[in-house]
């Protein structure tokens, strides 16, 4: 296991200025410049350091439980008449892919001499993954979470608190993920020296989208090796992953970006329908703009005010998308699809009954689009099963009672 460092010459990876095509950059107020600049100047050197790589790989193996299995889902494959593999990020410690990134960033924060860790969280998965690594390393941890989300994700709030984190409600704006991110950024402005901000997705100012993508790139690195062993070729025909901000998709796509024979299929949350007014399908509904210091596609009013998205899964409930994904959309490299709340629920129950795996609602969005790919029996399809469904039992129970 090693972190991808050399991506020069790629059409799809970040360039030296921090852009993916016309997207990305660091649209930060001056108050954040020293923090972000410190990261920008140091992250590649730290990531490339053999000692860092070794510690990262060791923790991913012994603490997270990597490599996560690549499982040939037989009954699912029979149903969709293709060879469907599930990348089992749901089996990671803490239950999702988020921990790959928090392990990487906590090691980076230690090397930068930071004593205090802040994070934002929506559903609480990234908050839990951050609180977990802070407990592991004995660092102070503050997690910002929208007060609306605190109410609907009580078990994850309790997990973070048990892990020793302080959970601070974001009470501004719409009181969800976007506002939790605002509050975390404000905390960083107010604590510029001793604090590291662990962003949970491939969003925010450069170098975050690239740094988070590199930590998550372990997903596609393993997929390649595992497919080689199982099929004799490292290349699948399709890779599917759900996209909110897009970190599991960035990780699952990373090592295939320049292999254009591999079809990349990000699946966004359509909520109650793309045009229902209750959706989070950013590539369909967004226009270029600046959110959380990154130029990307985002859902906004005609006047440039950011719009509150909707999805049944709190992890996809974000009005923007990482700049890498905006670039993949603009260039046509990836084929963006979306799934509604109901389709995601249906796919979650289907996987549970066919394979005995209860997936997270987020990951279920990707599963929901298997039926639309016109698959051939010889096709090799990898679906990134980004998380497990324990956190969604409340929603699943309600659905069963209908």
């Amino acid at each position, binding site marked *: 296991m090693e972190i991808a460092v050399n991506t020069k010459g790629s059409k799809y990876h970040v360039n030296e200025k921090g852009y993916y095509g016309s997207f990305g*950059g*660091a*649209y*930060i*107020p*001056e*108050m954040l*410049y*020293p923090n972000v600049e410190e990261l920008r100047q140091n992250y590649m050197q730290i990531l490339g350091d053999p000692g860092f790589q070794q510690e990262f790989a060791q923790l991913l193996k012994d603490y997270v439980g990597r490599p996560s299995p690549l499982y040939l889902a037989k009954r699912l494959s029979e149903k969709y008449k293709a060879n469907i593999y599930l990348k089992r990020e749901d089996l990671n410690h803490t239950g999702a892919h988020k921990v790959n990134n928090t392990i990487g960033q906590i090691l980076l924060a230690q090397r930068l001499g930071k004593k205090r860790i802040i994070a934002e969280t929506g559903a609480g998965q990234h908050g839990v993954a951050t609180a977990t690594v802070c407990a592991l390393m004995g660092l102070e941890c503050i997690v910002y979470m929208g007060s609306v989300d605190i109410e609907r994700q009580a078990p994850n709030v309790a997990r973070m608190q048990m892990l020793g984190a302080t959970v601070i409600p974001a009470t*501004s*704006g719409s009181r969800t993920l*976007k*506002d939790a991110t*605002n509050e975390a*950024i*404000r905390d960083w*402005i*107010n*604590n*510029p*020296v001793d604090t590291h901000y662990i962003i949970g997705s491939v969003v925010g100012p450069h170098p975050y989208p690239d740094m988070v993508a590199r930590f998550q790139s372990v997903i596609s690195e393993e997929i390649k090796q595992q497919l080689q062993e199982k099929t004799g070729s490292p290349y699948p025909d399709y890779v599917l992953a759900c996209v909110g901000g897009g970190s599991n998709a960035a990780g699952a796509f990373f090592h295939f970006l320049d292999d254009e024979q591999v079809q990349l299929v990000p699946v966004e949350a359509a909520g109650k329908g793309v045009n229902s007014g209750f959706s989070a399908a950013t590539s369909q509904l967004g*226009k*270029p*703009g*600046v*959110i*959380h*210091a990154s130029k990307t596609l*985002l859902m*906004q009013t*005609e*006047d*440039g*005010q*950011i719009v509150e998205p909707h999805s049944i899964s709190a992890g996809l409930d974000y009005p923007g998308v990482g700049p890498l994904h905006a670039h993949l959309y603009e260039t046509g490299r990836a084929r963006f699809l979306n799934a509604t709340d109901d389709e995601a629920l249906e796919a979650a129950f289907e996987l549970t009954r066919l394979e005995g795996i209860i997936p997270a609602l987020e990951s279920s969005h990707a599963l929901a689009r298997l039926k639309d790919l016109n698959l051939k029996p010889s096709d090799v399809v990898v679906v990134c099963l980004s998380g497990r469904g324990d956190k969604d039992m409340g929603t699943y129970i309600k659905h069963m009672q209908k």
Partner: protein
Amino acid sequence: MNRIDQLFASKQTGILNIYCTAGFPALEDTLPVMTALQAHGADMIELGMPFSDPLADGPVIQDSSTRALQNGMSLKKLFTQLKDFRKNIHVPVILMGYLNPVMQFGIEQFLQQCAATGVDGLILPDLPMQEYEQEYRPLFEKYGLHLIFLVTPETSEARIRQIDALSKGFVYAVSSSSTTGKDKDMKGQQAYFERLKSLQLKNPVLIGFGIKDKPTFDAACAYSNGAIIGTAFIKAVENAKDLDGTIKQFIQSVK
């Protein structure tokens, strides 16, 4: 000559710049607030263009933005309100806001409207220096608008020099590493203010963030050409019944 430059040419100390969110407390209060600010002795006016996600601002200014947006404020509406403001208002006026609404309006169209209505300068905290230099500088210059950049206690001397070289009008010195409206002690910032003063920048310097009353205003003025008050002013007017009287009293309490 730009009105900001005219002001600093005639007055070098104790300049009072007051921030208020456009369309606040009520939608049509923009001009009455500006008129009262000028009448009661503000030297400069900073008008906030409300945004849903103002990252550099604390809760008071964010709440004022939310209220202004609920009132129906938008850039289109703002330029309608500002159409004839130069008939009565002569002090320099700066628009402060975040990049996204400006991008959606169209940057050139926005600058054109600023110039046409009589706005003198802009503060866009999330427009980085590099972007400005690479993409936008000629446009700002074409329309004669000054873009004002921020420096903070964490800004290195080399970068302060770069910012000074690129700035027009004045340099905005953020008093402490914070969002707006944080109650941080001004005394702790003396070394930073002295360092800034000793750099002898080509631009005048106004200090902002945490300036809320006469003692903090005087403390800031001791090291700079003046100061900017935002949060304290918003708090004073948010529930004001008599806007003009409240503004008069507020300015008298500071100056």
